């Protein structure tokens, strides 16, 4: 209980710090948001009125609290990059689905492919195959995800014609098509992460195999397979769990880049265009979302940890 409470406290503090930092960061930007919104031709009264309405004249802490209150409800103010008066929150909600799907699909790919591959490569230690596998994993870790996306587009889209580049379709219009298209950007995001996870799992397994309790297990007369499954695997997977949680942050980063390659209407592209257009309300909101998600997931992983590893003290 104490452990959980402690982690919960850390969670809340982290989230608060994040919100404060995110908010403050955009307050130091030079430039007047009223001017930005209304343009150079606006009169002084118009600018004043805008400022009144937006609450820009109040002090920093009050503005922060107002913003936070809105954020918790999903209201982030108005976006300034489109002609119509769009609420930032609405924009984000539209794009959220795509990015979430991309992240989830990538994650599934990673888990499903890395674990068997990792076990396999650990088994082939010290063979020529092993050097080769190492080479391949290093190679795929060296490929920037957006370049990989381009290669995939080139090879599978243009040359092999397995999909048509740019033919993104909304999930509620045709879910099957949506999936069939999304698999390719998901692969682009996943491949470098798969390489990293395989490498990590392999070294985790190899490290476990050197430990004394494996020798004890052998002395009891167990077969190698049994030792692997019943003893080593569980122990080796524990650090991998944290690793995958950290990976989540990377997946989101990769998603941002890959969305650009495949022209997906996701959070990533929205973020980039918002930065270019100085639509700070949207930028703030997206940053807050993504960071919060990462922190919350890390918190959940910490919680899970105490159930899988008995050495973690739980009072």
């Amino acid at each position: 209980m104490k452990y959980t409470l402690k982690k919960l406290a850390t969670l809340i503090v982290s989230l608060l710090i994040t919100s404060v930092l995110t908010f403050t960061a955009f307050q130091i930007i030079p430039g007047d948001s009223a001017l930005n919104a209304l343009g150079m031709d606006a009169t002084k009264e118009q600018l004043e009125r805008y400022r009144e309405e937006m609450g820009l004249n109040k002090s920093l802490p009050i503005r922060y609290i107002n913003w936070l209150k809105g954020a918790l409800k999903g209201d982030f103010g108005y976006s300034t990059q489109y002609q119509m008066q769009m609420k930032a929150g609405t924009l984000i909600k539209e794009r959220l689905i795509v990015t979430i799907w991309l992240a989830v699909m990538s994650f599934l790919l990673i888990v499903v492919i890395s674990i068997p591959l990792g076990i396999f490569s650990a088994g082939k230690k010290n063979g020529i195959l092993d050097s080769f596998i190492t080479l391949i994993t290093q190679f795929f870790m060296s490929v920037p995800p957006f370049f990989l996306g381009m290669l995939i587009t080139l090879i599978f889209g243009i040359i092999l014609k397995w999909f048509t580049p740019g033919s993104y379709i909304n999930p509620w219009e045709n879910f099957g098509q949506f999936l069939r298209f999304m698999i390719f950007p998901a692969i682009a995001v996943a491949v470098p992460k798969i390489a990293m996870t395989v490498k990590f799992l392999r070294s985790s397994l190899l490290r476990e195999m050197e430990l004394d309790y494996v020798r004890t297990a052998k002395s009891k007369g167990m077969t190698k397979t049994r030792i692997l499954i019943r003893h080593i695997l569980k122990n080796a997977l524990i650090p991998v769990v944290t690793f995958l949680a950290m990976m989540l942050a990377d997946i989101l980063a990769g998603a941002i880049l890959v969305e650009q390659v495949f022209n997906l209407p996701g959070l990533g592209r929205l973020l980039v265009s918002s930065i270019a257009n100085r639509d700070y309300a949207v930028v703030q909101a997206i940053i807050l979302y993504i960071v919060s998600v990462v922190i919350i997931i890390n918190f959940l992983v910490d919680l899970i940890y105490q159930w899988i590893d008995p050495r973690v003290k739980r009072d």
Partner: protein
Amino acid sequence: MKKMVKIKGKTYHLNYILGLVITSLVLLIVIIGFFYTPYDPNTMNAALKNSPPSLMHPLGTDNFGRDILSRVMVGAGTTYVIAVSIVLIGAFFGTVVGALTGYFGGWLDEVIMRFNDVLTAIPSILLALVFVSIFGPGTYNIIFALGILFVPSYARVIRSEFIVLRERDFVNNAKLMGAGSLRIMFIHILPNTRNVLIPALLIGFNNAVLAEAGLSYLGLGVQPPQASLGRMLSEAQSYLLDSPWYALAPGLMIILTVLGFSLISGGMGND
């Protein structure tokens, strides 16, 4: 047995040698690029727009008619300089912070570590994007932004080492010899972290290369007309169907740069 190669009596892994070879090649290209390129990388030649690889232009020309080979050479150089600067900033400040917090501990350590935890939870591209959105794009801005972003991971690595090492008896011995804290931290303890620090530097370099490429690809890093591998890739995207060589060259260059160091650090780890 892992494939080993014997050179002058010492055995090395094949991958390690491969890494050295690749990195040397890339370095060679980069260094040459500082002094000489076949064409001026910024000279446009409308007549030769998007031409495929030929004897005159071994890697073809881009959509402005500029020679791709020259641009790749210079772009690789830019990437190298940026990446090295980022790692130097991150490693230097990270080591100082890590050493201080690891050695002394206390409440300052707690605070800094919480801070660190929050920072490392966030994808670095995101933070870089925040920074860029506040201060604007540009080469120096991303060096600064990414450099600062790299500090927490080095701090964490060095800190863990220091926490372990400060309990060792040779540190106690150093205190008895009369060494002051600073001397103990940086002359006695720090050299013992090299097994961890050096691979971290190599990995950091790779991450910096990839991060810079990503930012430039998004248009937020190195600004035109300066050549940058990431930027070239984003320009190449529109021409993928017709002129695939435009994308392949810079992409391959990035891969080789990162792969080279990867293999070297991998080879070091296994020895």
